[in-house]
């Protein structure tokens, strides 16, 4: 068994976990598809590209990177609140399809913003210590850097799982998802929950954007990559955070295998083919709830 294959799969799965979390967080709160998420990921990675050096010989210290990340997360929280207040909240009470169309419009607005500020830009974000790793035998050397996405992905994922399972706010989100009007009648502020969810989604998008930017080229093509995160969310079950990890592993494994043994271009379509197959067999996703689909 080729160890690099496993590393590639883990790397891709980590990125998919990060990219799909934003979709699930919003769906859990409002039963709306958040199509703006790829745009948020892209915006974050371009901002990261602007701030962090692109020179591999002379990368900045870890401290500066962490401060940048912290500032961007704060910015992400504010952006999430703004998006909810000015784009999503005005549509409350209208049909869900118009809210989805709104997130779609937001995606294209974000794409336009990126296109206007950084026309045709692309590049890497350089991290220090990219060559640190461990020797397995004479020929294989695993870089810790390659394991960054799965580690970050798992940490963020675990944090969100614990948030929904244990915290009061997380419980409220679940209550709103279950039945928003009943939850409102029990004294839960729905707008507050929506705003919190959007803030979480944007922060997850920031983390995803930064992580992807250190691993692969940042360009407008990130939107397409992040849309594949959508398929992960669906395969796992749109309302199931727990299902993301196995779904990400499944899709990443199939995609890496397709790149390796079949064809580079077809690998782009693999997540979508997996999605169609899974939805045919289990329409509610591998770990979603059945009643999710049947509920009136």
């Amino acid at each position: 068994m080729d160890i690099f294959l496993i590393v590639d799969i883990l790397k891709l799965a980590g990125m998919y976990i990060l990219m799909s979390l934003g979709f699930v967080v919003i769906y859990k709160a409002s039963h709306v598809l958040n199509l703006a998420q790829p745009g948020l990921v892209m915006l974050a990675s371009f901002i990261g590209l602007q701030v962090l050096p692109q020179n591999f010989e002379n990368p900045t210290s870890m401290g500066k990177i962490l401060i940048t990340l912290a500032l961007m997360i704060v910015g992400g929280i504010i952006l999430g609140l703004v998006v909810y207040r000015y784009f999503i909240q005005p549509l409350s009470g209208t049909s869900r399809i118009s809210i989805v169309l709104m997130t779609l419009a937001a995606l294209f607005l974000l794409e336009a913003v990126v296109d206007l500020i950084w026309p045709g830009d692309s590049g890497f974000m350089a991290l220090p210590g990219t060559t640190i790793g461990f020797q397995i035998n004479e020929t294989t050397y695993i870089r810790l850097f390659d394991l960054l996405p799965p580690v970050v992905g798992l940490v963020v994922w675990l944090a969100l799982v614990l948030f929904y399972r244990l915290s009061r706010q997380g419980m409220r989100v679940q209550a709103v998802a279950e039945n928003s009007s009943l939850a409102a009648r029990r004294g839960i502020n729905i707008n507050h929950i929506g705003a919190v969810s959007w803030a979480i989604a944007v922060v997850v998008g920031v983390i995803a954007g930064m992580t992807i930017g250190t691993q692969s080229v940042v360009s407008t093509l990130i939107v397409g990559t992040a849309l594949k995160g959508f398929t992960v969310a669906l395969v796992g079950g749109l309302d199931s955070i727990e299902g993301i990890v196995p779904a990400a592993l499944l899709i990443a494994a199939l995609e890496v295998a397709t790149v390796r043994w079949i064809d580079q271009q077809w690998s782009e379509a693999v997540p979508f083919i997996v999605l169609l197959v899974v939805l045919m067999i289990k329409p509610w996703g591998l770990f979603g709830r059945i009643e999710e689909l049947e509920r009136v």
Partner: protein
Amino acid sequence: MSNLKEISSKLRAVTHGSPYLSTTYQQDSGLFAPSMKRINFIVLLVVFIAFVPYISSASILSVTNFSLIAIIGAVGLQVVTGMASQLSLGHAAFMATGAFVSTGMFFQMNLPPWLIIPLGAISGMILGFISGIPALRLRGFYLGITTLALQAIVGVACLKYQVFLQTRYGTTTDLLLPQIRAFGVTIESSKSWFFFLLVVSGLSVFFVKNLSRSQFGRDTAAMRQKEVVAESLGINVAMVKLRAFAIAGFFGGLCGTLQTFYFRQASIEDFSLTVSVKYLAMILIGGLGVVSGAVYGAIFVTGATFLVGEIISRGGLTETLGPKSRGIELAVFAMMMIVFLIFEPDGIAGVWTRVKGYFHLWPYRYVSTTRAKR
């Protein structure tokens, strides 16, 4: 004798009747209310449109032709997203299918263009039918996402096919499609294209408008209100969705085929996800679920895109803004979508109804536009 009486009474209904007063069931289910005013308006409109190619410049004529092609696609999307209320993110996939099937049919099977165009539309319809099959098991947005999957898969397949065609038959100039020749007429100038497209898109709009009063149209209207209730009333919801997707696929394929023949070339970049969203923006801006809304929206979005380019080039901003034109175009249509969503959810069709109602009912104030909205 009684026949004559019938005809004269019908004529009288047209010339003197009110569009708001129906006295027979036949009138009630008619496509257009019998009204002399309306007939006059339509005749005037047709006469005006027929003169467009003679009074407009070449660039305006080409924008008009683009709009006419867009109307066909938008009307198709209106059936599935507007009428049946199923989010479709893969409309460009139907267009791509039509485009590449017709290209393939010409280069590999050497069929004549007049046969290729309907076959391209039918290929789109078949794909629409296939993409609707998950509807048998899926509900709500899950179905919408399968259309996104369709967009991705068809995109890759068409890219592969394009590369195959290019390696086999040569690049750009060799892959030009022929002009359409049928019944001794060649469609080559933009003027002749205008009349051809006018007929095709007019027929498409008429077909979909007529559809909205058929059994299928009433089923979709019930489904739009509440799927479960519609099902309990005996409507086979999955079947309705399947048919909606097939019809959308047909018009998508027709739109893609015509676009390919208009440009005389198919390129996969013309059928990206952005295009799908552009068509969604059209029906959203025009008015979701209203057939005439698709027409307004298609004209509005195509015209706005053209206007932005025109302002940039006329205002001498080409040096500063030229490289950013794609971003500006995206920003303009994203902003249009957002503005319409927040301030005018009924779209241009809603504005039109309200303005018309305001003048009609003046000095009374209240005009209802909530008819068949969501």
